[in-house]
């Protein structure tokens, strides 16, 4: 039995501890917003937070989540109110949308650590997340815009 919290809810699961967290989240917990893209931590589509840190859940065994607090895209905000989600809407970022959960989860850690990120900071934080549609210019703009929102609006 492996126990942890997901988006604030406690879960206890009978699962092979070597199973990647990604597939436990998607198949056992039914949270399909976190995506499978490569299985080898190359594309970032599976990014979730474990205790606030961005983790590639496709290569993290579920055992690593034991006793931790996991956040997925479904837990980023209940109502699209996270500054990144608001900025994503304003910049019309997604195209196919498949990578965007991972993009947002990576960006959320960046914005928390660096409330006013530079372009270099964005490069560093976001280069692990591939977007085949090529939404990078809009992701960059949206991160800057979200940073402005946070600066103007104070705490989120």
């Amino acid at each position, binding site marked *: 039995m492996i126990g942890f919290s997901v988006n604030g809810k406690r879960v206890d699961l009978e699962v*092979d501890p070597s*199973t*990647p967290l990604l*597939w436990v989240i*998607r*198949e*056992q917990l*039914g*949270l*399909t*917003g*976190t*995506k*499978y*893209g*490569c*299985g*080898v931590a*190359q*594309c970032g*589509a599976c990014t979730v937070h474990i205790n606030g840190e961005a983790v590639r859940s496709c290569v993290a065994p579920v055992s690593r989540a034991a006793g931790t607090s996991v956040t*997925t*895209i*479904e837990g*980023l*905000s209940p109502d*699209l109110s996270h500054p990144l*989600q608001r900025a*994503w*809407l304003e910049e*019309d*970022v*997604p*195209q*196919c*949308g*498949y*990578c*965007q*959960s991972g993009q*947002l989860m990576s960006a959320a850690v960046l914005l928390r650590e660096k409330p006013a990120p530079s372009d270099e900071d*964005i*490069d*560093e934080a*976001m*280069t*692990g*997340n*591939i*977007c*085949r*549609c*090529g*939404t*990078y*210019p*809009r*992701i*960059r703009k949206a991160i800057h815009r979200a940073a402005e929102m946070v600066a103007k609006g104070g705490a989120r």
Partner: protein
Amino acid sequence: MIRQKMIGQETTSENAGRGIQRRDFLKVTVAASGGLLIGFHFFGVTQLASAQPPLGSSFMPNAFVRIGTDENITVIVNHSEMGQGVYTSLPMLLADELDADWSKIGYEPAPVDPKYNHPVFGVQMTGGSSSVYSGLQQFRQAGAAARALLIAAAAQQWNVDAATCRTESGAVFNGTRKLTYGQLVGAAAKLAPPANVQLKDPKDFKLIGKPLKRLDTSVKINGTAEFGIDVKLPGMLTAVIARPPIFGASVKNFDDTRARSMPGVRKIIAIPAGVAVIADTFWQAKVARDALRVEWDEGKMANFNTSTMMQDFRERAKTPGPGVRKDGDADSALASAAKKIDAVYEVPYLSHLMMEPLNCVVDLRADSCEVWTGSQFQTVDRANAARIAGLPTEKVQLHTTFLGGGFGRRANPQSDFVVEATHVAKAAGAPIKVIWTREDDMQGGWYRPAFLHAIEGGIDASGNAVSWRSRLVGQSIMEGTPFVAMMMKGKAYDPASVEGVDDLPYAIPNVTVECHQAEIGVPVQWLRSVGHSHTAFAVECFVDELAALAQKDPYQFRRQLLQKQPRYLGVLDLAAQKAGWGKPLPKGMGRGIAVHFAFESYSAHVAEVSVTDGKVRVHRMVCAIDCGQYVNPGIIAAQTEGGAIFGASAALFQELTFANGRLQQTNFNTFPVMRMNECPEIETHIVESKEKAGGIGEPGVPCAAPAIANAVFAVTGKRIRRLPIRLTEAV
């Protein structure tokens, strides 16, 4: 194995043959709920019923729109949403003519039904950058027809002449009286639809031409958008397939002793695609699949090497090939040219590499079958699923989910990912989801074909281009598709191989284009911008080489040769001007330019690059696009940015190679995609135009590679003749 069976052709000939024939748009049929249906032939009520809310709460004036008593308006979209924004642009067309309140507009994927067939290609599909321009009339007429019905209903209630009524923002007005569309649902459903409808004068458009925000963003940023891979059915099992390591290989025998005893494994079966492991979860299926020991009969491709293939292509390019275009006499003009130059351009096989790997869900019952997948080819996929299931086509329903990227891969002429899932479902005895791993997807074929393009050109003593001879060698992608008859028409070459050079727009008096068709057992398919993805590279790089030979500026050289091509000139000038062509750049940086026509749109790019330690960095791309009358400039900009990045990824990084029949690349680490830190600044400038609408999904791709390659020349003085760019190979 894959190329032997021309399945798509066989199952779709009925529809494909109809080609451009337009159906009677305003054919009237009574719909299931007593509402009215204006639209194309209406076969059966099940599809419509599945797209309908409870009786009485709404009505469908036609196949493309449903109006609710709650004022919500749902546009039924017959093109798949794969990033290109059709769930916004097509509803805009309908909503504008309907004078709907945009905040009440929603979208819904169309079921598979002939009434949703592509008006040009005759099957239900998404491709060729054609959704907006082929849907323009269809969606506008559907909106206008619905509006006319609502006006008629209101006029009847008020007992006034319909001509005295007007509509605005989801309501009909007469003087001070107002009835909302929702209030008119019941009355309108009882009326016969109008025989003719008047479309708006474009000057009266309220939505068309505006950069409206996409309607599908919310669900794509909170995890709720349902892609094929996310579909879950009660009792569903998941399968992963051991696939042949070589194209054409087949299973000789397999040992599943270990795999069978692994947790969660339900069944292991041989199917035409390989050996399928069916388990409770993906991970169980994947681990057990990896534990299989499969012995393959390797087949004819076991010794296939791309290096040898390209050597063969080079030899073939030395001999004349089937003629594609002949203006004047290119050979004589070459012989008498003051100066001449020749160059051989080579591009590799490419993978579509959608972020969402291929997958398909099938629920097969005794007398019905439901399929959920991200399809670009619904008519074909449904027919192929029915054939494998052994059911009549009408017993199969196909649900189009969101597509996590398509780029052409999900319009497979043989429905490979649907066919194999249906095979698995037959054996599973439960609803089944087949998931391809990233490696399965990359190694599964249907690539952009590798091409060689040899060009010779000459200029006269004044530096005017006088001769051009292109000779291409590569595989056909139309062979084996439903479009082979329509596209090839008995030609000895595939038009999709030469598109973008057969219409060479430059004023050169002597032009010859020839194309050798190579027969190679690597399955190939359309990939975003298809033939243009390689012809633009060769043509636009060679124009630069001719300009250098004539000692002219590459932009001015093009201008001079495009004097009779106003739309090419328009985008060329716009891109050059916005990029500051001719203005000095910092040391170590250079600009390159390219212009191209594809999918009914004109496009030009200027790239700014630097080269450090042999590594090319693209800093800025300025893109101009003329897609005629446009619908949503925001989406056009997004597609142009995405197209430039897609083209730049291919130019800088991407190559599939085979050694002894085996693909050498497996995942993003060996077939890279441009990343955030490599992404240039991109500007898009749209030409204001009253010309016929063109495409936007693909036209942004072709110019990227030649603009970058020409910029590399500007910096290094070295010519790039092979993609991906490797400076060690430059000449």
